[in-house]
């Protein structure tokens, strides 16, 4: 699935309305990410990092421009798709890791990781969920509920769930923002290595320069809705 995929962001804009005031969060932003490559998004708070990631996930409607994801000669255009189609696409082709509230509290660790397989009716991946948890050092926590896990363990579960389907695109919104230095390094390592090994495109928003530096390309957003793209 992850062969020959590419993400193209073409002159996208997004604003929010606050009463009579219009707040422009993203303006004319364009970039590309190739299969197996990673892009880090940095910038101060309010610069639009999370909005960009939500737009890449199809969670927000664009005002202008388009995002396309090419998967094995099929191009999915976000702008052309309705909300329901974007949801179905996200379910199948996009993994997402948040800073916190990553896990469904009422599902066990194993159930959380298996959730995308169940949603996509892929019973063949259920055994892979256990394997992933073993690889991430969580084989003894599979039947616990998330509330019993530490922050670092919860993030490892979230990464395992995000890569289970081997999606072409994985989005991570400050995945280490809530962790100590040791756990941050561990999560970043797992994320980048998993994506590289499985040829997954990774778009990661972060405040950490060290983690941003691990990406192939770096996109810096500033508070004036402008962007600067630099290869690392």
């Amino acid at each position, binding site marked *: 699935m992850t062969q020959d995929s590419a993400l193209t962001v073409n002159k996208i804009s997004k604003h929010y309305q606050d009463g009579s005031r219009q707040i422009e969060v993203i303006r004319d932003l364009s970039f590309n990410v190739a299969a197996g490559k990673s892009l880090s998004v940095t910038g101060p708070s309010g610069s639009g990092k999370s909005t960009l990631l939500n737009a890449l996930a199809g969670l927000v409607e664009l005002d202008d421009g388009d995002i396309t994801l090419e998967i094995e000669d099929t191009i999915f255009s976000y702008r052309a798709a309705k909300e329901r189609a974007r949801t179905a696409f996200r379910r199948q082709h996009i993994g997402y890791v948040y800073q916190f509230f990553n896990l469904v509290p009422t599902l066990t660790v194993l159930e959380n990781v298996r959730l995308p397989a*169940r949603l996509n009716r892929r019973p063949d991946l259920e055994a892979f969920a256990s394997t992933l948890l073993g690889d991430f050092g969580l084989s003894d926590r599979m039947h616990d509920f998330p509330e019993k896990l530490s922050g670092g363990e919860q993030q490892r579960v979230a990464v395992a769930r995000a890569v289970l389907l081997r999606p072409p695109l994985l989005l991570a919104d400050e995945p280490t923002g809530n962790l100590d230095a040791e756990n941050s390094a561990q999560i970043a390592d797992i994320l980048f290595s998993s994506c590289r090994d499985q040829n997954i495109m990774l778009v990661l928003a972060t405040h950490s320069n060290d983690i941003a530096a691990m990406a192939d390309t770096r996109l810096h957003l500033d508070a004036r809705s402008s962007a600067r793209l630099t290869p690392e």
Partner: protein
Amino acid sequence: MISLALLRFLRRTPWSTSMALVGMALGVASIVSVHLVSASISSRLDGLVPSSLADFSYYLHRENLHTNDYFELRRMWRSGALPTLERLSPVVDETAQVADLSVRVLGIDLLSQTPSGEIQTSTGQFAFNGVWVDETLKGALSLPINGIIEAPEGTLLSDISVAHDLLNWPDHQLSYIGLVIGHAFAQSLEVAENLLPGFGAGLPVAKPNLAIGPGWQLVNTAEQYPARAFGKSILFNIAALGMLALLVAWLLIYQVAVSWLRRLWPVFDRLHGLGVEWQSLRNYFLGSIGVIASIAAGLGLIVGWWLATKLLQMSVPGQVVALDLSAWVVAKAFGSALAVCLVGGAWAFKRSQQGKPQSLAPLLTTLVLLFCGLICVLEAKTGLAGGFFTIAVLSLAAGQTIGPLLILLKRWSSNIGGSYLMRVGVREALWHPAELSVALAGLSLSIATAIGVGLMVDSFRLDFSQMLDHRLKYDVIAEGAPASLEALIKAPRSVHQANRIQHYRTADIRVNGVLVELNVTQMDAFESSRYAHDKRLGNREVLLSEQAARSLDVLPQATLRIRGETMTVAGTFSAFGDLKPRLIVDDQSVIAAAMGADFKTTSVAFKSAAPQALAGSLKRSSSMLEIRLQSDIRRIALEVFDQTFAITTVLITIALLVAAISVYIAVTTLRLNRQAGRQLLNTLGVHRVEQHLMNLSMGIGLGAVAMIVALPLGMMFGWILCNVINPRAFGWTIELQMSAGALLWPCAWGMLAAILAGMLQVGGKEEGAFGGH
């Protein structure tokens, strides 16, 4: 400033504010409608007792009561031997034919007690040889009329000597001695009766111990006026049921307050940091809830008044209903709304401030109360109030089990199988005892009450229907004036085309001081079978209604002295709907022979191969009589039965509605707190239909938890209503039947309420504290 901010907060949370308002208004409407209906019925019931006798709390009776007995008693009272007695007065009370009318003649001592009716004589002073009559006898008698009194139809009041003359009694004979016995709580009881019409009927009746020697029977007002006591017992039952919606509204207000405090707490924390005392913050918060309470009370008054009008029109069709919106009912509406809101709000504030109390005190209190409840069930002397106290205690205990039950189910919930989204939905329902237990307690309580009342009504209906099967063995019944019925009996049998004619005669007598109805008829095997007795009734045998057996405290095969004759109790029979205790003897019995002319014919029954033709012929030949077919009587009886319970259905529906609102508020709060989780599922690609299915699973989970508590609780309520409340209120027992309808319908409605509460998304996007998201 803080008050203004809180009022703005209420405006910015329109859904929860309006839901709290609607729930509270429904709770108030429930008690207001019950109060108005009860007050209306209560005033009619009070009219059953002539105003001149209304003050008496007890009556003293003995065989052949002589004026000397009264004077002896009066001497003892004057000497201070009867300290609890405030007043005593001789009374003559008997029915007689005066000017061809059946008149209840009441004789009292005019020197000590003047009737309250307006004097209508030309001199403006009453004459000792004159009488007071009720409106219906005005102009019907040739006696001098002193005035008109408030009394049941056909009542005549006079001095004792005039009564003796009218009854042809010797001048020393009395019927009973009326007593006014004071007690410490008389004034409190009067206030309680004004606030809750019928309240007195629920209290246990302990007869005072008067040291007056042997041979006297002390009869309380309830035994003297069984119809009034019967009605007041119904009012007490309805009042207790009316409180249910208010109780559930209290839980709703608590739930709303918890929901608001979740959002307000960070702001309160900051205000406290700025130097505002917690007590002041609590008072501001309660003040804002008080605003809702006041508006809800006003709305509840309007809705309650409308509801009461409809309910009264339903129970007495065709009658003009004029309800009195007294100061008592207004005070009750505002008082209860404010009390419920302030107590609920203060409780929620305390819980938010201190977290969940770890004390064992509530558990121990509940256990002690449960023990007291058990005593109330076993001890009949605790009366109706004892039965309802047990129901209240069981409700409290059941409410307290919801939290631990949810914790238990949370531990077990990892075993839930099926689709992952369904697991999430069901577990959401089980995982939040702090947020959901109070709302679920309200829902469980409403469902349990619906089950309990449903089981009682279905069991009652079955027993009632069986009683009708036994009783309605004749095809045509004629009722009306005794003279017209006598004429009908004497007519040639061929005219009636009947196979069997049975006539019934009746007299009101006192047995052991208790006023009972004595029926006389030919009690052969066929007639005896109508009362579940399998053989002819002997000359010295008597059948007793359940109420009579209870009032006279006798069992089958016991002996009973009736008018000087010793009779054996051959058996008891069900008599649902009877207002008085009833005794039946054979027309050849010693009592029938002794009493002879004292009886009056009340009805005649016919068996016929062609009942329609017979009824038609009787209607033509006896136009003064009411002729009814057996099938009509059955249909009307069951219709009246169903009408009787219409008010209970309405009250339970209101409570269920308030409970559903409460669960909805709780679920909305939960949803607000779990928005991140929902967003995560959305990111994972769970679409709206699947989210609705999750909400459905959650609603089913909530309903199932409510059901786990409600089913056993409802069965216990049903048992208590059939075996404790009914015997104590009305003197009859009902065999509890576990009818599927009574169990399933409330569960279905409760489940529907929980599912709707779980699935409704409106209001889930309300703003946070003071407008912040």
